[in-house]
């Protein structure tokens, strides 16, 4: 196995995730945490939550982007090593709704950083987020082949 394909294999088998909330109401966030718990157990896919962006491959972003959090979100994305991927979890992270017209909200996560997978729902069920993660893994696999 060449070093490049070894890296790809490792990434597909164990994507490390970072979760950042840029102004969400916590509903998506608790569903993301529920993924770690026994019923959903996302670790069986090798997914491991990390505490710092420097260790993460995938950013799970929840919530609309508020003015105060926008630059933070951008910074966190910049700190992640290449290649990096973003999953926007929830209706707010996807488009900003229903806070789209609120004065302190810029809109969805894609206003600030590029997004690879959108998971709709308010909040999405843990199964949907799981499905979104596996979709992303498929996308990575296809892109690199």
């Amino acid at each position: 196995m060449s070093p490049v394909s070894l890296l790809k294999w490792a990434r597909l088998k164990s994507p490390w995730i970072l979760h950042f909330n840029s102004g969400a109401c916590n509903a998506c966030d608790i569903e993301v945490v529920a993924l770690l718990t026994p019923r959903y157990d996302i670790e069986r896919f090798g997914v491991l939550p990390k505490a710092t962006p420097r260790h993460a491959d995938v950013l799970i972003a929840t919530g609309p982007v508020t003015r105060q959090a926008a630059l933070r979100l951008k910074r966190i994305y910049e700190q992640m090593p290449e290649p990096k991927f973003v999953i926007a979890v929830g209706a707010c992270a996807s488009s900003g709704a229903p806070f789209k017209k609120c004065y302190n909200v810029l809109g969805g996560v894609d206003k600030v950083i590029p997004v690879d997978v959108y998971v709709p729902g308010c909040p999405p069920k843990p199964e949907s987020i799981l499905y979104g993660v596996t979709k992303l893994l498929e996308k990575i696999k296809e892109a690199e082949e």
Partner: protein
Amino acid sequence: MKAMSPEQEAVNAVKSTIGNSVLESKVPRPRRVYIRVKPEAHRKAVSALLQTFPLTTISTITGVDLGETIEINYHLWCGKAEVTIRTNVPKSKPEIETITDIIPGASLYEREVHDLLGINFANHPNMTRLLLPESWPENSYPLRKDWNPEQTGKLSDSSEKTPTIGGVWTENNGSSLVNVVVGPQHPMLHEPERFLFKLDGEIVIDVEPRLGYAHRGIEKGAEHLMFFQDVHLVERVCGICNVAHTTCFCQAVEMLGEIEVPPRALYLRTIVHELNRIHSHLLLLGIAGLEIGFESLFQYIWRDRETVLDLTEKLTGNRVMAEYSTIGGVRRDLTPVLGDEIKRDLRKMKSRLKFYREVFQSDPTVELRTKGIGMLSREEALKLCVVGPVARGSGVRSDVRKHDPYAAYEDAPFDEVLYKDGDSWSRLMVRLDEVDESIDIITWAVDNVPSGPYRTRVPRRMPEGEALSRVEAPRGELIHYVRGNGTAYPERVKIRSPTLANIISFREMIRGCYVADIPAVLVSLDPCFSCTDRMAFIDEKSGRRWIWTMNDLKARRRTL
């Protein structure tokens, strides 16, 4: 002589001290009092109330833009009634004397009104931004009616400056004094907030929270939607205690429109409200386990929490966002089969609770990390006007369900849980015991739910007027103040969530604690946000910066 009602007592307390400054007083419904006083008399009115009712706490301050003037409403809970003391200030000179020296708990509310409506509270100790970003332009106040939505300022790097508490720190005599910035990015569930800790070695000297990373502007947004649409917007203030928000808002609108809610709906609201409380409390107890380094406890509790989410889904159609209460009732009915299932599953949950109680009472890890740590005395709790389990952990009676009953709580058999020690452990135990009480309430409500319709038709237009509604959210007293103007759109919606009331006490709790206790103490507050995944440490002397992760912090845990 007939005994005086508490409402009348409150009015008399204010009138007897500053009788000639009281312009108007009314008692529109039980336990709600509105007193209008002349400008500058509000301080005396608050003092008078505090003298007659020593347990008075401030609920919140609402500012309403009336065009030429801005009305300031001080909502105070005097133990028996919610007294609103109001006065007007001219928009041309928006200044009013602070009441923080009388009630220190008003500090954050005054800053909020200052931030969003541009009222200057004279002599306030720290009149700085609370919610809006640092890049927000001066003299742009979003809750004023004449505010121009273009005035939001540019996104700049100004918010990225390293914050400091109280300027330069000079008493550095060789010891390792440091400022610690915590947040706003976290590994897990919590909302983005930033805390600045001032440390002497391992000991926390001071802390200042910076809120507003999740400030979206819902109060303004609510003014642009119709009442029935707002139900869905306020549900999304907080995804964890969403049922409390919808129930509170619907109650306020029902008071405003004098809508009679069918009794069956009141019972169904109670059931979902308590299911929501169980899910929220279990969530917090699990996170507490995680923060004290007891991960298996977190996994166990969250596994059992799924039961409650399943029941919520079966009853309301959604796991988390219940979308259950609506103006005039609830959206779905409870079938007898589901009622039996709820009772059966909660019986199982009750036996699991015995196990968790044993863990929290006898496990040495829990004891070492929570007992005697993060102290909040009863006096401080009253002074800072904390609410919910935080207040009850310090022995302050504050359960809205008991003292200002709504929905079906008037008849529900339950006890107010009180612990006297005021440490992290007491606050966690209050929640554990409340889960037990909630199970009893739900079982009782399912057995006694009256038959009949569960929803009435309501008009879209609501009359002119005002209503203040309080509920006991999982984190404490939640307040919605709604003002109608005769159309289908509200004139003003004010929301005071319990965390804003409680966060002020964090400073009191954490002073003198070790760095490693920060996560456990903060989580015992059950904030809708928490700190710590990454901390930037700045050495005051050399200006050297370094980064610690949460794991490094846990490794620095106090060894006894």
